[in-house]
């Protein structure tokens, strides 16, 4: 351990010397640089400290964040309400299982599997989720707001019916096992790999996959939202006719965003499946879609940060409450009567939605943005 720090240390000291000194020192003065630094160190080091329970909770939150970013582009940025997000998550999760799994018999169902390499299956699953969104896009392109919400509601019911009944593909009620992801000969499963004397199981390994996936997803979405397409999307949300007059192809954009958001959902589905190690149809119901909507409303509509914050809030809250149910006031341990942690978390995020709508119209993400703005007012000179 000490060896590696010694090697790394000179790198740090020599780095600022050649070129770009001005911009670099400038950056060094900003608190943001340190925040990013500390956050990345923490995120990278967490698997070495946290229990599997917290890592798994974190992974659920990361997957939810990816899905929520997708939904936020559709609902938050473009103003298209979708209740069918759970359906696309299911498409991603199940496609991965079908593409990567081997044909086998399980629970009385003869399961079909194509046995593709798992990384390829993961990519194809995301594309398939996009394709499913594409099939729906003639409708998504024409309907707006609440009307689209109602139309997409149908997707959940159709989806769950298929999941329960297409036994040879989905494994029916009990779902099917998820083959562990394997990348360059490294498998993200439960076989223990000891890194720095810490045993790495699937959660520890997947943590890094989740981080990379979330980072890429967030950067891509930020690019889209900050660029030309993002402005077009906001224009459609704010005034559809004006956007059309200015030359934004409204229907095409709506359809396109719908496809993109389903691909995000597909990616989230693949990650969730990997964490669950088994896909269960029960999960991909209407409650899940509503939770995603709650995430983006609580976090903040229309921004990537909002989606991520909201996703972490909504998916970690019940876990935290359950974990500490013994020591929290008012919340009682299950089985002793009184308010169960599951119920308590529902009340809490119900209250959070109301509070956010009333007092923080920009969502929780606003809280975070407000601070740096105050501390660095001269930022406007920069690009």
């Amino acid at each position, binding site marked *: 351990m000490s060896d590696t720090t010694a090697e790394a240390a000179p790198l740090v000291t020599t780095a600022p010397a050649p070129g770009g000194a001005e911009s670099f020192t400038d950056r060094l003065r900003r608190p943001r640089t340190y925040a990013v630094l500390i956050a990345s160190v923490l995120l990278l080091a967490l698997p070495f400290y946290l229990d599997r329970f917290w890592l798994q909770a974190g992974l659920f939150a990361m997957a939810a964040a990816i899905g929520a970013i997708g939904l936020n582009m559709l609902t938050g940025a473009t103003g298209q309400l979708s209740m069918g997000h759970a359906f696309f998550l299911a498409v991603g999760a199940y496609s991965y299982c079908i593409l990567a799994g081997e044909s086998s018999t399980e629970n009385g169902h003869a399961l079909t599997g194509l046995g593709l390499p798992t990384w390829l299956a993961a990519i194809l699953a995301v594309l398939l989720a996009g394709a499913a969104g594409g099939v729906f896009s003639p409708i998504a392109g024409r309907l707006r707001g609440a009307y689209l919400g109602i139309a997409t509601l149908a997707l959940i019911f159709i989806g769950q019916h298929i999941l329960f009944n297409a036994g040879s593909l989905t494994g029916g009620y009990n779902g099917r096992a998820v083959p562990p992801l394997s990348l360059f000969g490294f498998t993200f499963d439960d076989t223990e790999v000891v890194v720095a004397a810490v045993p790495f199981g699937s959660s520890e390994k997947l943590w890094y996959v989740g981080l990379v996936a979330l980072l890429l997803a967030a950067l891509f979405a930020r690019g889209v939202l900050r660029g030309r397409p993002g402005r077009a999307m906001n224009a459609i949300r704010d005034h559809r006719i004006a956007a059309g007059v200015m030359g934004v192809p409204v229907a095409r954009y709506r359809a396109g965003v719908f496809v993109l958001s389903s691909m995000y959902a597909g990616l989230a589905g693949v990650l969730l499946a990997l964490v669950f190690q088994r896909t269960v149809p029960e999960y991909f119901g209407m409650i899940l879609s509503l939770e995603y909507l709650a995430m983006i409303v609580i976090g903040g509509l229309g921004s990537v940060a909002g989606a991520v914050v909201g996703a972490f809030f909504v998916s970690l809250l019940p876990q935290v409450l359950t974990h500490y149910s013994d020591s929290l006031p008012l919340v009682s341990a*299950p089985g002793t009567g009184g308010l169960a942690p599951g119920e308590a978390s529902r009340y809490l995020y119900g209250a959070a939605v109301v509070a956010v709508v009333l007092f923080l119209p920009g969502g929780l993400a606003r809280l975070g943005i407000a601070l740096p703005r105050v501390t660095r007012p001269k930022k406007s000179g920069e690009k």
Partner: protein
Amino acid sequence: MKLRALTAVVAALTVTLVGCSGKATEGKGEEQDKAGIKTGPGVSSSTISLGVLTDMTGVYASLGKSVTQAQQLWVKQINAKGGICDRKIELTVRDHGYDPQKAIAGYTELEPKVLGFAQFIGSPFVAAVEQRIDGKDKGLVLPQAWSANLLGSPYIRVVGATYDIETINLIDHLLKEKRIAKGDKIGHVYFEGDYGENALTGSKHAAKEAGLTVVEQKIKPTDNDMTAQVAALKQAGVKAVVVSAGPRQAASLVGVAAATGFNVSVVGNNSAYAPQLLKTQAGPALLKDYYIASSTLPIGDPGDGPSLLAKQYASQYPNDVLDNGVVAGWTAASIFGEALDKACDNKDLTREGVDKALLTIKGYGTEFGVSHDFSDPAAPSTRESVIMKPDATVPGGLKVISPASVSEAAKSFTLK
């Protein structure tokens, strides 16, 4: 440039942080206490921790509550007697509300801290963690589900007859009572999914053995009105109906059949009844010609086991309903206790020790009418079913009309 510097700093700090982790492999293996008893996860010198993954806020809320409270009652009594192996039993309860994410999170949370699970509601979730249980965890899990799909694992052990065997016994009862005969049609209304489909396997087997024809009616757990199903079955001319659904569906089916003058016997699996049904409009019809099979005596039975449990449960939880979940929970917990006792005698309180001890349990649980045999992981613990009939005068609303027995067809039935 600055990006590279930042990366380097992050890498250096990470490596430093990582080096001093407390999660690094410590002696997590087996230990021995003063008395020479081997212990493992979930067992300390003074306590044995057991996990309970239940549903108190979801679709199986009423079952989950009864089962959990019965198990808490059992723990209280065992601890009052001094515990097992000089250790107090401790239950850690997690309510997952029938949500897969919470169920799996609950398992992950409790698994490192407990010896095994005395209750796990939701067969899809048990299936989801089966790989982990069979692979590395190896803790004993007693699911509150009776699907044949759960059989086969040496660590996940079903207490009682599976739905397929129960259904065969039910149809056999109808044959014995001369309600149906060779060549007749029987209807089967079943839930999509594990429970219903497993029961359907049973009714098909029984029908083949007895020369009957099964008319299938698949329903969803959200379907509460059985009018269409009754009409279809009436049209098909069935002589009896099997219900493998929830209490609500059973009540609707029996009620609608009676109201439309369709007088057939209706039989249901253990999950197709709740004592609260007798207070509904379907009550009188249910009292007339409805039968339930189960792997335990009902809570209202005058036998020693059930009556004592009913008394104790009622004094501990005076406001709660007495139903068959109480017996099921108690039975599962006491079987876990029996395995712990044997493991203690063998001086091996590790997970492996408890698994091994369970394999030696035979002929257990007779005070609740059915004898369980855990020596074969591939078979359910019993093939016997008690046939019961609703009765408004006893607590729990059920009385026995035929004691535990196994039909010829159920004996010959090969699982999977």
